[in-house]
């Protein structure tokens, strides 16, 4: 018979635990998830006020800017859209890519038959519609047409019917409206005029050189090199700055600002600057052309270099190094996408490539929300467990060691608290108090409620353990040596029940996370916009989301499920490691 090596209990426990494959897997996976939710939020910062309707319900993809193979090397025009883009090849064929499904029924990739037949030369994209121009001056619109986006002006319609060519040289599209400029300086505007100012002052007729469309408005560059606001409204664009009154060579716009470049390369930006659109960086060469996305500008310099400024969202300003080293001929910029066409016909892209986990109904990145939500859920769970442990250990220790009326009192209190049905009680508390306090206070409230309501279990466990330890020889020895009672409880007895505490804490952690998420799921816990793994699933509770927007519940549910399963696996493994008797089971 082999002689067994004597090991300390601690090492035995460790060995038992290390040899439990399920427990180890659980621990490793949990640590990975924990590290992810604690570290990732430092890099993908949560902006609670962020919402972006143009990015709502985008499925998981990283290919929003991936140009079709057939188009590569033959690009004539590209119009970037919200989550999609449309391009024209030099043979007049139209391609779409990215996420083109605007609504349940409208898919921008369904290019109308007449557009496929025609030889298209230019395209433009609005928020949810596409405008295309063919070589004969014919204009086509598809996508969302409900608000008059496809109701072409009489002149264009008439010319198309009579096969005349209006010589349109520029088409543009904004939010539910579109514009076309002809070579003889005419401007046609059509679409939903409820939101947008679709008027043109008579004095500018026949003088328009170029237009730039913001979300609801437009500015025009006249043939004499001055920039004007052509509409009738008074708004942020209608007061054109002095510096843009003459000598302008190019204009452009973002969603809420407009910009003009003059012949010397000076850039003037005006409008509602909220993303630093006016903070034009220093340039080592003269800008000749300017392009606008939704919140950023891109300028093409005389030496073929590219420079960007404005919002940092979705990396729209991170121009890849390869662009700087190449000679750029043209840039197509729009919303969050940028395409740069080199003199060799290659296309370089930067901006919003997509979302690994998709987006939710308010256009928020799910990866971001899962990481930040996980941090909230885990923090709440951990603090709740710590509160419940502290109360449970102190009360259980006192009750178990001293017994008598203290024990009686504590156990009765524990039973009253334990007698409160947990979920309903927590719901009441947060319904009553929760409405009057801020989001952050509400988070603390949930932690405290969870902790204060879940201690009786721990308390009873500790008490039972201490009752059995109290009669052991080492306690009697300590008493005989005159050790103070408090020290006996917390320094001599407690370490012996530490294993029990560790197991309880682990399992309670999972329970607290579950309870928090359940409360949040029901709308009584931490409420939006603060994400938690529970309230991310609240909006998923209908059949449309379950089927069509599966990524909105599959990813949070999976991460959360794996996390709680892992914690329970670790707890189970710990228990059997501490308790050799259970190994026989």
């Amino acid at each position: 018979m082999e002689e067994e090596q004597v090991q300390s209990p601690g090492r035995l426990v460790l060995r038992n635990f290390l040899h439990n494959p399920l427990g180890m897997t659980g621990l490793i996976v949990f640590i990975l998830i924990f590290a992810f939710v604690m570290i990732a939020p430092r890099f993908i910062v949560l902006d609670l006020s962020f919402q972006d309707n143009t990015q709502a319900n985008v499925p998981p993809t990283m290919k929003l800017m991936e140009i079709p193979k057939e188009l590569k090397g033959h690009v004539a025009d590209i119009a970037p859209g919200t989550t999609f883009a449309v391009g024209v090849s030099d043979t007049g064929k139209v391609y779409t890519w990215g996420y083109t499904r605007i609504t349940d029924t409208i898919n921008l990739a369904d290019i109308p038959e007449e557009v496929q037949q025609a030889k298209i030369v230019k395209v433009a994209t609005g928020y949810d519609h596409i405008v295309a121009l063919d070589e004969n001056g014919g204009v086509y619109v598809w996508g969302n047409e409900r608000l008059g986006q496809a109701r072409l002006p009489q002149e264009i319609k008439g010319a198309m019917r009579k096969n005349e060519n209006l010589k349109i040289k520029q088409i543009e599209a904004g939010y539910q409206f579109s514009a076309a400029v002809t070579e003889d300086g005419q401007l046609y505007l059509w679409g939903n005029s409820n939101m947008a100012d679709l008027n043109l002052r008579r004095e500018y007729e026949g003088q328009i050189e170029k237009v730039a469309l913001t979300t609801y408005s437009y500015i025009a560059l006249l043939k004499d090199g001055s920039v004007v606001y052509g509409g009738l409204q008074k708004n942020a664009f209608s007061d054109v700055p002095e510096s843009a009154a003459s000598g302008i060579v190019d204009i452009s716009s973002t969603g809420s600002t407009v910009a003009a470049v003059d012949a010397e390369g000076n850039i003037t930006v005006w409008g509602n600057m909220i993303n630093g659109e006016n903070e034009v960086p220093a340039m080592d060469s003269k800008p000749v052309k300017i392009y606008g996305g939704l919140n950023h500008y891109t300028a093409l310099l005389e030496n073929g270099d590219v420079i960007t400024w404005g919002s940092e969202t979705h990396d729209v300003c991170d121009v890849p190094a390869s662009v700087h080293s190449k000679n750029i001929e043209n840039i197509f910029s729009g919303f969050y996408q940028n395409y740069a066409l080199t003199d060799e016909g290659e296309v370089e892209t930067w901006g919003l490539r997509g979302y690994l986990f998709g987006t939710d109904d308010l256009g928020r990145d799910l990866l971001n929300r899962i990481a930040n939500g996980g941090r909230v859920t885990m923090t709440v769970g951990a603090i709740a467990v710590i509160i419940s442990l502290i109360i449970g250990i102190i009360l259980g220790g006192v009750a178990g060691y001293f017994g008598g009326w203290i024990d009686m009192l504590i156990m009765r209190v524990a039973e009253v608290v334990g007698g409160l049905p947990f979920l309903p009680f927590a719901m009441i508390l947060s319904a009553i108090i929760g409405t009057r306090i801020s989001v952050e206070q509400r988070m603390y409230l949930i932690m405290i409620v969870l902790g204060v309501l879940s201690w009786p279990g721990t308390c009873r466990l500790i008490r039972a353990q201490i009752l059995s330890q109290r009669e052991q020889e080492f306690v009697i020895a300590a008493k005989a040596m005159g050790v103070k009672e408090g020290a006996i409880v917390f320094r001599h007895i407690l370490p012996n029940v530490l294993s029990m505490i560790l197991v309880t804490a682990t399992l309670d952690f999972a329970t607290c996370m579950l309870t928090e998420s359940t409360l949040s799921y029901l709308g009584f816990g931490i409420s939006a916009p603060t994400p938690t793994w529970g309230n991310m699933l609240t909006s998923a509770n209908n059949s449309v989301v379950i089927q069509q927007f599966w990524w909105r519940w599959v990813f949070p549910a999976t991460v959360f499920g794996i996390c709680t399963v892992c914690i329970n696996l670790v707890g189970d493994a710990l228990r059997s490691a501490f308790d050799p008797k259970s190994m026989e089971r």
Partner: protein
Amino acid sequence: MKKYIVKRIIYMIFVFLIVSVLMYLLYNLIPSDPARAELEGIKTTLRPAEYEQRYQNLREQMGLDDPILLRYARWMGFAPEKESGELHGMLQGYFGYSNFFKKDVTEVLPIRMKNTMIINLFVTFLALAITIPLGIFCAVRKNGKFDNAVQFMTIIGYSIPIYIIALVFIWLFAVKLRWLPVSGMETPGSNYQGMQAFLDRIYYLTLPVLIMTFASLGGMTRYVRTAMIDALGMDYIRTARAKGLREKVVIYSHAWRNALLPVVTVIIGWFITIFSGSVIIETTFTLNGMGQVYYLALRNSDYELALATQMFYCAVSLIGQLIMDLSYGLVDPRVRVDK
């Protein structure tokens, strides 16, 4: 034993009273003014002075300015109502008036309690029918492949929140396969009678029942398995085997009967909970049960209804505790609960 029961019941009433005081105080933190609500309908027909007069009278009548403990006593039915001088509270069977349903609470709750009970009875029976044989089987072949798989599944079962299980089941059975409806209790607009109504009800309740059953499998299977393993480790099992009894007899006659003891108490405790519905499943499937009523009451600030439902939940859990404790002694004479 009798002394113990009496002691427990007295103690239970004591806990119930404390909880009810706590609850009442808690609900009184909510700013609300029943007197103003009462006058809201005729507000426009009165002159301001007259309105103020009526309002003050009403407050006086309703006793809103009395000390909170007196109001609590009235609500519980310990003290007479100010107006009628009669006892009219919880103890007399008056649970308050629901603002949301515009009915007395006693009229709102029975039908919902019935629905909840039907659902939970199905769930309990289904769960027992699955978990007991499964637990026994796993115990007999413990640490086998099948047992390990089941062990792992049960951990998953009790780790994953029920609403995630619900989402997966809805996706599978209602959205993908289209076998079962997504929510509701009966076909809207239908007026079925007899057998047809019954089948319709079954059609709508299958999915929630399935989900609740699935969610409760984990804990029970583990419990049965542990009890069975303990029983199988006893000396009398070795004796029975040594006698040459068939394995079937050993397992079902000797081991299972002894393993039953701890299981029975849990089952009894389980049966008590059939009265309190699952808040999550009932709101997810818009089932007309206790859980949903509680949710609706809280969501719509219908606090008299919420308070009554809460007290009901509390009573159920206390009675369940008591019966569970007593049943330890009843099923196993060796256990003396009064010690």
